[in-house]
């Protein structure tokens, strides 16, 4: 834009040439056309920011505590970062932790139940019993059968023999004997007499047993030692002395005298079988 010569003020001979009067500055295309709208937009934005700033609020004394809060948070962060450096756990520790805890709970539960018991003297004879079992197992590997045999066709023969004997028995059973009527009357008379005698003798026996019961109750009141002394005075057997000897010795929980020898036990077992 060419401006009027404002420098031409009463100064003769010192004016700049007309070519220097051209404005060297330039602006973007359509700058001045867009300028009013952009200024108005800026003005509106300024207005809006002013409104938002005034809508938020903070708790009371927030800013006064803010510094302390930030400092404590920083210390926590530092502590968390430092902790892994000082503590270690074995490899796979957390993976097996829940199983270990459950196992421990089960163990605690089991230990709270009643203690298991074993029979008296169980462990004393255990090794011997195990050795017996070992020998038996070895023996079974060598000798699993008894070695006996039978004649060929014996099983069928045996069945035949037994059945023929049972058939004979059956024939004997079905034998019919005719009774004589007169003899039958005699049998009835004899049966009546026998019945009466039986009733009388039964009553006698019942009376005797009641007397015996009262005798037993009398015996119970007499001290044990007196009975033993009386019996030993009557008999000269040594059994009484052996029994007394056993009474005075200790007994295990089954009531077996610990003084009794193994041979005595074996004889007793064979007797009992």
């Amino acid at each position, binding site marked *: 834009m060419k401006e009027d010569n404002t420098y031409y003020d009463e100064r003769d001979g010192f004016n700049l040439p007309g070519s220097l009067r051209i404005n060297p500055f330039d602006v973007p295309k359509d700058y001045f056309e867009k300028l009013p709208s952009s200024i108005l937009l800026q003005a509106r934005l300024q207005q809006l920011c002013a409104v938002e700033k005034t809508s938020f609020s903070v708790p009371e004394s927030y800013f006064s505590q803010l510094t302390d809060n930030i400092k404590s948070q920083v210390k926590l962060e530092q502590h968390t970062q430092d902790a892994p450096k000082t503590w270690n756990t074995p490899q796979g520790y957390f993976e097996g932790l829940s199983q270990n805890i459950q196992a421990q709970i089960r163990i605690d539960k089991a230990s709270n139940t009643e203690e298991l018991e074993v029979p008296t003297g169980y462990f004393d004879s255990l090794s*011997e*019993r195990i050795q*017996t079992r070992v*020998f*038996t197992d070895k*023996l*079974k590997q*060598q*000798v699993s*059968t*008894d*070695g*006996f*045999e*039978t*004649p060929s066709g*014996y*099983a069928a023969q*045996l*069945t035949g*023999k*037994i*059945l023929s*004997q*049972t058939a004979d*028995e059956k024939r004997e059973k079905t034998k019919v004997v005719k009774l004589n009527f007169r003899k039958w009357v005699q049998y009835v008379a004899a049966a009546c007499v026998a019945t009466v005698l039986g009733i009388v003798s039964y009553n006698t026996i019942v009376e005797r047993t009641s007397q015996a019961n009262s005798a037993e109750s009398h015996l119970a009141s007499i001290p044990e030692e007196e009975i033993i002394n009386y019996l030993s005075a009557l008999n000269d057997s040594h059994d009484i002395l052996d029994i007394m000897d056993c009474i005075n010795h200790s007994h295990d929980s089954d009531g077996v005298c610990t003084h009794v020898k193994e041979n005595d*036990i*074996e004889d007793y*077992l*064979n007797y*009992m*079988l």
Partner: protein
Amino acid sequence: MEDALIISKFADENTREEAFGYLLEKYQQKIYWHVRRMVINHDDADDVVQDVFIKVWRNLEKFREDSQLYTWLYRIATNECITFLNRKKQKQNLSLDDDSSAYLAETLAEGSYFNGDQAQMKLQKALLTLPDKQRLVFNMKYFEDLKYDEISEVLGTSVGALKASYHLAVKKIEQFFASHD
């Protein structure tokens, strides 16, 4: 055939023989071997087994089913064996308490209907050194594989006594084997 069915068929006179046939088929071999191991000799075992089954024929209808049928049969067979062995001892003028069973050892030595090897012969000889009842317990446990409860039902002895008896029997056999190597 189930034992209960055998017993019920035996109770009916019309089916008695048929039931007895089934019973023989089911049990005669077991009873035979049980007896044979005790009396050793085949002919003696044959006699005893026949006696056993005749007794069964006579008494099965009185069987109260308070135990298993096979334990009842075993009980009869066991008693017949013991009776037979005692009778043999009396014939040989031996004491009933004499457990040497020399006559059985002789039978064994004859080898009649015995095809066992050396180890089996040795075991049988060892068994003949035991008292009859102890030998019975050993046979039932070792050869017949019966449980102690079942042996207890047959013999009417406590399980504890049977275990002790078996244990003593095995110890004696072990000592016999050690001394006869």
